[in-house]
């Protein structure tokens, strides 16, 4: 999966969680949590959805890697290289 495809995947999952999420002003190097009104439960949803769609097991200690859109892509890129 390309970096752009991973980015789209993450945004698609977030949109399912919060249909009112506004991506137009999203800065990819800033915490998603501050920009999109996401809470810790929402991040858990992202983890569950990634497991469901791509069989990814993300351990709890890696959750901070999902903080920004950029860090999501960096973290997921090697894991999804064959997807």
């Amino acid at each position, binding site marked *: 999966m390309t970096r752009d495809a991973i980015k789209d995947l993450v945004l698609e999952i977030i949109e399912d*969680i919060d249909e009112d999420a506004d991506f137009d002003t999203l800065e990819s190097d800033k915490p998603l949590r501050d920009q999109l009104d996401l*809470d810790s*439960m929402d991040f*858990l*949803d992202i*983890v*569950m959805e990634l*497991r*469901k769609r791509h*069989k990814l*097991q993300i351990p709890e200690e890696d959750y901070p890697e999902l903080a920004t859109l950029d860090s999501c892509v960096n973290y997921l890129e090697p894991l999804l290289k064959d997807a």
Partner: protein
Amino acid sequence: MPVSFAKAALANRYDVIIIGSGLGGLTSANRLAYCGYKVLLLEYHTQLGGLATWFKRKGHIFDVSLHGFPYGMVKTCKKYWNKEIMNSIVQLKNIVFDNPQFHLETTFDRLDFTEKLNKQFKIPESTINAFFSRVAGMNFYDDQSMTTRELFEEFFPGRSDVHRLLMEPISYANGSTLNDPAITYGIVFSNFMNKGVFTFEGGTDKLIGMMTDELEKNGVTICTSAKVDRIVVDNGVVRGVEVQGKLIECGSVVSNSGITNTIYNLAGIDSFSDDFMAKADKIRVNNSSCQVYMGIKKEEKIDDIGDLLFTSTAEEFDSSELCDFTTKSKTFSVYYPKTRPGHDRYTIVASMNSNFEDWNSLSEETYAIEKQNLIDRALIDLDRYLPGAKDKMDWIEAATPKTFNRYTLHTQGTSFGTKFEGLDISRNIFKEVSGLFHVGSVGIIMSGWLGAINYGVIVSNDVDAYMRTIT
């Protein structure tokens, strides 16, 4: 429709078996069905919901634990249940405090509390803001050495009236005291302060009915009158559960019976390591409750005196006074016709915190007398707000910690699960016995309707991760 165990045609094996249908168990069932697992939900009682329950008497419907939850419930119901359930959530706008130290009416949110603390209690706005910032920034993994008492003393030294305003509602919400970790207070208090107090229009029966429909739509098999005798563990791995002598196999068990029940009565202490048991033996369960349920005659009306009243005639707030056998402190939840549109009845539920042993140690005769005394005290207290209301009632009955124990099987009838240490045990139980998970009120923060539902989601994530390693 859920069927009773005796009449159910069950498979020999399920992916996941959920023991208990409290809000945590129901939510785990729904999430795991969503993840694609074949789920069996077993409930000991004839009715689903656990402590999120109700009962009918003489045309009245009494809600047991529908007293108000934080706004976070809206998002949680939308994500983990459905929009229909979310759309039934409405605000309770009039929360009343009445005690010898102060009287006030509030929407119970940050804005209104800031104003009250500033104008009525003369606390500088900078102190109020600093306090709100501190509690809003608290996480469950933060240092827990500070107690709520110390937190209050830091911001509002010597102000027992302010301590009362801040603590009393939370003590009723989750049984916590001034001696519990400040983080447990901060997390729950901040949740409420976000937007105020909300309820479920249509009542508990409607909510549980809607959840049952959703579960069945998603393929969950639901069995009532199904008391699990034990969780069968083979060489450190869950094999299934035993109900009325019948073994039902599964990949995972999610126990929504209390954490202490799960360890001591269902899995058995031999299933766990000495280290784990040393920690489990230290789990303290929270207090239980007493309630008095009062129904107003069909043709009668009562005035609007507020939705939720925190009342006390005790001079000062004291966590242990709240649990006293003859406590002077109680809440009144008042259910107007708006609670169940179309049903158009008024009911009032008085709730008190209470200790199991105080009631369990009584002889049968004394128990009956004390139950009547409990009712009489509630009626006297209610008369201050609704003079003469007693004459408009056609049903009054009481519940004690023994009642809670009988219907929920909770250890010592606990209404709020365990103290903080229970959370760690609950979260890590699957590392001791593969495939065994616990969901339910633990650690004070995973308590109440919102806490129970969110914890059901958190545990489902653990279950899903585990199930993918074994299939």
